[in-house]
């Protein structure tokens, strides 16, 4: 009975597979990979990235203009023919409501518009006023979490712009966007089916149906190979290697995610990791080439947590190299006595096909060569994250996915930032870095890049973060799809597949 499967009973449906990381597709709450992949297809945003180039925000539903002091952004409704999936036209009110809802409901992505006041000027214009200079705003608005919803319908279904909002369930089952697709069925555990939005103002997608299945990476391998699936998101480099290259197309892009080791700065918690010499020894003891090998082809070194393609990234050639002698000297200096350091990581996680559990074992083996002993503490990601958030873990593997492609998104790694808090690194601990941080925030225009680069170089120097690798985002597409668009912004654009 499986025999007829190749015959492509698929027809005008495109089958995509990923291991779900999905809590909701209410855009204003959605903050995970799977949710944003779906919302990208459902919702339009005020601004977009041109052809996936993350350095160039361009017009989306609106065009924009930034004031000189980066405090005021003026949005002008541009696509007047845009319509929601129920046929209602997209209006300024919808956009204002969407922004305000995002801010008010205190969901995970609410911080995107922190300190921004949204003001409707007239039926074509919106003003976003930021308290502080906010040069990142154009980079933020294309995020699918800031998707524009049909205000009227959402309000009718308990949607509000404060914490009392109750529209999440409704939005999960009934998308209210103006993008190329709308939700047909939503099952957060197994699969989400999208169908074409006939009111979409762009070209109608070739595939009128998208089936996104929750499937583990190992099953994705067999499914893509056997024609059961058209798109696979989570294959590791090893798995991609084994595929029959004549049957599939492979798109590899630099990932926007960073993988790093964190070291707790609190002596009580971290023990040796509180000593800068120990941390630097860790950085010198790692065999980055082997780690790169795990990430597969096109994996990149990182000299800071900021991905290499981003403004403010530290050039990757400045990344440290393995130097065991140096590591040993540093360890002597640190007075490290070989005690085992608990090393925490999520045992069930893979980041762009990089298995964190394997990475942890590799790191353990490499550090052992320098005399550093790690005792691995795997845990399911939920539990691991709990401990990390509570700032209780001495050392471990962290990952960060860019919320928006601007260096300011990486301020979390700077003393006082939310991630820095988790290693007990507070403002004032490094006055030098505080100064650099202030300078970076103040910098404008072309100065921002270098200012941030300097800041992140300094933070990385402390060894509190040891950037490991920038993985590759690999999307495997079956040959049934003749052309497709896959870029850093959307990973895979269902609407443009043919």
């Amino acid at each position, binding site marked *: 009975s499986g025999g007829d499967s190749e015959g492509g009973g698929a027809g005008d449906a495109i089958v995509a597979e990923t291991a779900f990381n999905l809590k909701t597709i209410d855009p204003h709450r959605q903050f995970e990979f799977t949710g944003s992949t779906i919302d990208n297809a459902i919702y339009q945003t005020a601004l977009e990235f041109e052809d996936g180039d993350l350095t160039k925000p361009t017009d989306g539903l609106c065009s924009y203009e930034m004031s000189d002091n980066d405090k005021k952004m003026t949005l002008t409704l541009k696509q007047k023919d845009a319509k929601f999936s129920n046929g209602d036209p997209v209006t300024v009110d919808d956009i204002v409501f969407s922004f305000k809802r995002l801010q008010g409901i205190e969901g995970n992505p609410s911080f995107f518009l922190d300190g921004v006041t949204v003001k409707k000027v007239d039926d074509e214009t919106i003003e976003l006023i930021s308290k502080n200079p906010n040069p990142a705003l154009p980079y933020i608005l294309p995020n699918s979490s800031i998707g524009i919803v049909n205000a009227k319908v959402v309000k009718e279904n308990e949607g509000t712009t404060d914490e009392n909002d109750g529209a999440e369930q409704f939005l*999960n089952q009934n998308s209210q966007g103006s993008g190329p697709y709308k939700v047909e069925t939503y099952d957060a555990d197994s699969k989400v089916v999208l169908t074409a939005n006939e009111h979409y103002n762009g070209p109608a997608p070739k595939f009128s149906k998208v089936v996104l*299945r929750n499937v583990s990476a190992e*099953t994705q391998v067999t499914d893509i190979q056997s024609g059961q699936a058209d798109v696979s998101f989570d294959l590791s480099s090893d798995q991609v290697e084994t595929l029959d290259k004549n049957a599939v197309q492979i798109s590899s892009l630099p990932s926007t995610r960073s993988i790093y080791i964190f070291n707790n700065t609190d002596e009580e918690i971290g023990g040796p990791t509180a000593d800068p010499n120990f941390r630097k020894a860790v950085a010198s003891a790692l065999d980055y080439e082997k780690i790169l090998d795990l990430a597969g082809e096109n994996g990149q070194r990182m000299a800071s947590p900021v991905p290499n393609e981003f403004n403010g990234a530290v050039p990757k050639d400045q990344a440290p190299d393995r130097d065991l002698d140096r590591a040993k000297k540093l360890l002597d200096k640190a007075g490290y006595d070989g005690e085992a350091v608990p090393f925490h990581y999520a045992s069930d996680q893979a980041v762009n096909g990089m298995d964190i559990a394997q990475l942890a074992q590799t790191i353990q083996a490499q550090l052992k060569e320098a005399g550093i002993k790690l005792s691995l503490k795997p845990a399911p990601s939920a539990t691991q994250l*709990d401990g990390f958030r509570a700032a209780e873990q001495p050392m471990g593997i962290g990952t960060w996915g860019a919320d928006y492609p601007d260096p300011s998104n990486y301020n979390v790694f700077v003393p006082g930032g939310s991630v820095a808090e988790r290693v007990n690194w507070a403002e004032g601990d490094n006055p030098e870095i505080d100064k650099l941080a202030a300078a970076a925030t103040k910098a404008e225009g072309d100065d921002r890049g270098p200012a941030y680069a300097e800041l992140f170089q300094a933070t990385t120097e402390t060894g509190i973060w040891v950037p490991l690798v920038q993985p590759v985002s690999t999307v495997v597409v079956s040959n049934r799809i003749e052309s497709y668009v896959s870029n850093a912004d959307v990973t895979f654009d269902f609407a443009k597949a043919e």
Partner: protein
Amino acid sequence: MSVSATDQQKNLRPPKIHPLLRFILVRIGISILLIWGVTVVTFLMTNLVPTDPVAAILGDRAAADPEIVAQTRERLGLDQPLIVQYFTYLGNLLQGDLGVSNQTRVPVLESIGQVFPASIELGIGAILLSVIIGLLLGLLSALKQNTIVDHAIRTLSLIGISAPTFWIAAVGYFVFFFKLRLVGGAGRLDPWMTPPPRVTGLYTVDSLLAGQMATFTNALGHLILPSCVLALFTIGLLTRFSRSSVLDIIKLDYVTAAKAKGLAPRTVVFKYIFRGALVPIITVVGLAFGSLLSGAVLTETVFAWNGLGQYAYRGATTLDLPVIMGVGLVIGIVYIIVNFVVDLIYGFVDPRVRVR
């Protein structure tokens, strides 16, 4: 041993209600007690889990705000003493409210409604296979005791219960789907297939009801391998058990008596031996169901079978408390009900229990 009927009656104070009714009532009572116990266990178990549900529900940002955290705690009743929380939980439960998943915000009951039929379909497939194959093999093995056939069946059944399910699943998937394409792949249907209109939630049944033959064959193709894998252990179990059960029966006088009546061997085997052996076997089938549910967790993982096992696994690894509680409760109840039904069947099949 045998007292003449009149003597018995003279000294007998008969029960106030009919014995069969009493039997059923007692079984219902025990089952309800057990289900209540399951609620206590799930509740306590999840309270032992060292994770803060509030953090999971609120997400990063809100969890950092003590005020919101406190509010949420209050809203969820988490500031109450444990015993109050338990009664709230029980109260909700009685209204069919199993809570909402921390991860997906979907009501647990709704999700279970989705995944449960998947597991049932797999479970029924497996139990049918194991009952039919296991019983026949066991019978054959017992009838041919100490022959090559018997030794072969015993050895195979021992190997059957020794194989790690997940490994067999993976090997089976690789060989039968990936290499040979004899069966359907992961999931319950090919991805682009639309599930049949939901009546029972079992794709094979629903597709037949809707007259969608293509969907039916597809669903069956997907069902066959996982249920075989899952059945492997229970086949071994039932083969062994029915063999020893039949051997016990074969020795009994009534079998010799039946043979002495010159009945056809077939009649002796099926009417006398098998029927006698069946009663203990029914009990084991009930128990086997339990091991089936265990095996399902691993099997479902390999076959991306979106059933209760996968749901439970996700719940456990993300420490999604309402999900864990819900699944624990549902599985506990299913198990208890299955065994209740087994007891009832037992009661009805065996006249000695029926009329005491």
